[in-house]
């Protein structure tokens, strides 16, 4: 079995006094694509924000290639090669489309991704590159958010609800682009409401329920019954 690049060891995460995650243990192997599913409020976004360093945790609770990173700031985590596509896209409104992409690459990490490659992946962004990022449609904004994360040439990309609020045809377009993103050895964690979609593009799946891991399994063998039990706790 390959060594995991990312491992979570009994991660407890809180927002102030509110505890959102309880003893979450999980891992992502090199180049692996993992799905996180779960109902609203199950702690999926908290998990993403914890890994990315936006929520500070106990140092040992999150390990990157064996090194404890739970206490690092988000900019330090980003420098290690972990990029987050945040829920709600959260582009920089004062920056043009191209500037949003450029700032994603400002760490200067080497790798296959650059402006040209992102424009190849999402050609519409090249046409819109000088527009304000907020003038784009939701789907195009999501492409910018993904491109912005790719520009840092991450070894692990975290995608939080990238299909939220988008039309099915756009969702398909974005998911069709996914193999071109993770095909080159980049690991990915995908948080997704659409369970069928999540299972179809990932190797393994974790289900969260009220801050705890309620199911862990292979995406191609896990059954609908197992998922609905893990999802709703019934």
């Amino acid at each position, binding site marked *: 079995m390959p060594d995991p690049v990312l491992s979570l060891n009994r991660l407890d995460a809180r927002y102030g006094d509110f505890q959102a995650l309880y003893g979450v243990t999980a891992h992502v192997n090199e180049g692996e694509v993992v799905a996180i599913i779960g109902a609203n409020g199950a702690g999926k976004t908290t998990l993403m924000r914890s890994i990315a360093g*936006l929520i500070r945790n106990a140092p040992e609770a999150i390990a990157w290639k064996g090194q404890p990173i739970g206490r690092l700031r988000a*900019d330090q985590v980003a420098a290690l090669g972990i990029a987050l596509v945040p829920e709600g896209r959260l582009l*920089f*409104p*004062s920056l043009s489309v191209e500037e949003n992409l450029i700032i994603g690459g400002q760490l200067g990490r080497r790798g296959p991704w650059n402006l040209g490659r992102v424009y190849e992946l999402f050609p519409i962004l090249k046409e819109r590159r000088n527009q304000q990022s907020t003038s784009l449609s939701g789907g195009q904004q999501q492409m910018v958010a993904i491109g912005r994360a790719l520009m840092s040439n991450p070894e692990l990309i975290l995608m939080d609800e990238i299909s939220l609020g988008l039309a099915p045809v756009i969702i398909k377009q974005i998911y069709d682009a996914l193999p071109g993103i993770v095909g080159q050895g980049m690991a990915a964690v995908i948080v997704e409401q659409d369970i069928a979609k999540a299972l179809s593009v990932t190797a393994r799946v974790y289900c969260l329920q009220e801050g705890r891991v309620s199911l862990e399994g292979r995406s191609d063998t896990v059954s609908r019954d197992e998922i609905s039990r893990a999802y709703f706790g019934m």
Partner: protein
Amino acid sequence: MEWLNAILQGTLLGGLYALFAAGLSLIFGVMRLVNIAHGDLIVLAAYLGLVISAGLGIHPLLALVLVVPAMAGIGYALQRGILNRTMGDDILPPLLVTFGLSVIIQNGLLMGFSADPQKLQAGALETASLSAGGLTIGVLPLLMFVTAVAVIAGLQWMFYRTALGRAFRATSDRQDVAQLMGLNRAHVFALAMALSLAVTGIAGVFLGIRTSFDPSIGGSRLIFGFEAVIIGGLGNLWGTLAGGVILGVAQAVGGQIHPSLQLLAGHLVFLLILAIRPRGLFPKMEG
């Protein structure tokens, strides 16, 4: 002709006010910090110019070569060491801390330099003038104005055309997402404060050449700076220059009507604009 002259002198004076205000505008734009000590930092820069120009026997404008980097260094250390700890959702802690800083700077200067008025000696530059069509323009006010325009243009270019400016705008938009891009907020904020105080260094030296100063005058410079920022619209640098000019012209025209009206006229115009356009004349576009 007298009136035209008053407007002209006021416009040039507005350049100095814009220099007072540019640093305030910059840090408010980047990190929503209102720096109550800004006026006292201008005065501190004037004293720094005094010590350096008198100590080394050089022209105060040449002293800028040392004053500006020194102020930038102070700004970086101040932000990293103290002000970053006060930043958060609550705007009150930075207000209180910079207010305290203002008191400390004033009293520190009083201890070091006494309350006697001081002045930077700029020699012939202080009285040199150009005449054109019956109007007389002082070389010093003209130089201040040109410097202000250059500083604003430089800041504007930095803000919209450089990687540093991109980092400022991104951090201003969304601090946490900027952090995800590998930008350390503490460092970005400190760079903004360094730049703000570098401009303050220029403003302080010009202030010291133009008029005499003592440790207590920071407060009113802060007010002029604030008024220029608010008139122009928060976070808009060219607006800040326009705000400075409007304030300068209002004061000069008021002074022309009656000398006692000079300061009052500036404040009245400020209040008028605040009443009619609470967000200033050129508010920054919201995203």
